[in-house]
């Protein structure tokens, strides 16, 4: 099995691998690292989803307010509001509370200005798809993108797009410089293109932002 064949089956890859896939993973360190990175990203993505759950304190505060209004009564040994334990008369409160929380959640979310594409990036499946879209990128760029995705998933798309732009610049500048090695302007294009790539790497690896 070649790396290309392995990457083709990567999106469908679960925990169980075929003998052929296992053998390839044992013999190919690049694919093995890729699978390991994707597993880590997937794990982190699930953690992020868990973080978005409202804390018990939120439910507790709602319960306290409802009790103060006399809308629910004391139930021994139960301090939190759990929808299944409410009487049928109060069940309407659950969707109402959820709707209010979602409404204010959206307001708070908009205030923070999270880009629309972030949710997609934070899902493990999104990361796998995005990785496959980086076909043709140098392996060091792939490693850089995986490193960015593991640290700040929301920035991965930006880095990928900009690496593509810089690589296109380098490609054209190299061709231009090869066509006429004495052309000073072509040499300047090349210097500028590499300066840009260096900057992208420098920013991606900037420890102060980690």
């Amino acid at each position, binding site marked *: 099995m070649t790396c290309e064949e392995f990457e083709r089956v990567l999106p469908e890859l679960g925990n169980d691998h075929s003998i052929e896939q296992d053998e390839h993973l044992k013999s190919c360190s690049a694919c093995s690292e890729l699978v390991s990175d994707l597993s880590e990203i997937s794990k982190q993505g699930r953690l992020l989803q868990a973080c978005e759950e409202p804390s018990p304190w939120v439910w507790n505060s709602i319960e306290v307010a409802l009790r103060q209004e006399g809308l629910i009564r004391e139930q021994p040994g139960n301090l939190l509001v759990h929808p299944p334990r409410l009487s049928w008369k109060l069940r309407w409160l659950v969707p109402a509370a959820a709707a209010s929380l979602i409404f204010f959640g959206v307001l708070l979310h908009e205030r923070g200005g999270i*880009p629309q594409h972030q949710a997609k990036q934070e899902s493990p499946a999104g990361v796998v798809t995005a990785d496959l879209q980086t076909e043709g990128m140098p392996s060091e760029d792939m490693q850089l993108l995986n490193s960015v995705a593991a640290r700040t998933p929301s920035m991965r798309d930006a880095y990928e797009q900009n690496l593509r732009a810089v690589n296109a610049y380098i490609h054209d500048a190299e061709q231009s410089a090869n066509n006429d090695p004495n052309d000073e302007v072509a040499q300047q294009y090349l210097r500028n293109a590499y300066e840009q790539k260096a900057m992208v790497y420098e920013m991606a690896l*900037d420890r102060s932002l980690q």
Partner: protein
Amino acid sequence: MYRKQRIATVSVVMIIIVAALAAAETTRKEMHFKVGRRANISIVNVYGPISVKPGIGKHVSVTATSYSGKVEIDQSKRGNRVAVVSHLLQGADSDSGRVDYEVVVPMDANVTLHTATGPLHIEKLHGDLLLEGSTANVDVRDVSAGRVHVKTLNGPVTLTNVNDAYVEITSVSGDVSLHQVNGASVHVNSSSGKIHYDGEFGEGGQYSLTSHSGDIEAIAPSYASIEVVARSVQGRVDNDFPLQPEHTSFVTRSGSAFAGTVGQAASSVNLLSFSGKIHLKKREQ
């Protein structure tokens, strides 16, 4: 009727709770430092805006507003160097890790700002400025007598009224816009972002605007004093100025390159793109 009142009451209570929750998470921290001449001020803020303005005297004040418990503000002062860092805790994202900074520094301070999302804003300073932001919108205005160094990936960069400065801007895909920017050295290096210059090309400086695929538009007055070289390998090149021809190392074909001088040619201007369009425009009076 009673049921409607009850619904209204519960809604109000829940609104108050959620508002209280949001307010409870908002923390405002003020920090003050006494510094000497040309102090070095560094702010690192992964998510959120940083705005820097000049103050009176040798004081630095930093106001940081955070919106969750998932970010801490670390501060340090060593000698003439002040550093403030947003320290993200486990699980912080662009929403919960956001901190808004308002910073006041002495006019001669050297300022370094690092961010991922920004935006970054600096005004009315005379020191050296370094601004780095991956996707951050960068805005620098009314500064002079220092170095202005900006780096972004796709964040747009705007410089307004910058004089007697050494300017260096590198942006991969962010648009770069320079209004009344003059100095001994003004360099812009972009891949796919557009570059727009509207100014005098003054102070006998060296101006270099280069891109890969982004268009370059430079607007100068008819009395500009420049020696200009413009060339695009694949894009169209246009010029509104009557130029005195000049020898170049490459062939100047109409529509793809030109070179020449205007006036006394005090400043040197290079407009280079690989596939972007280039237009040197004369400012309408």
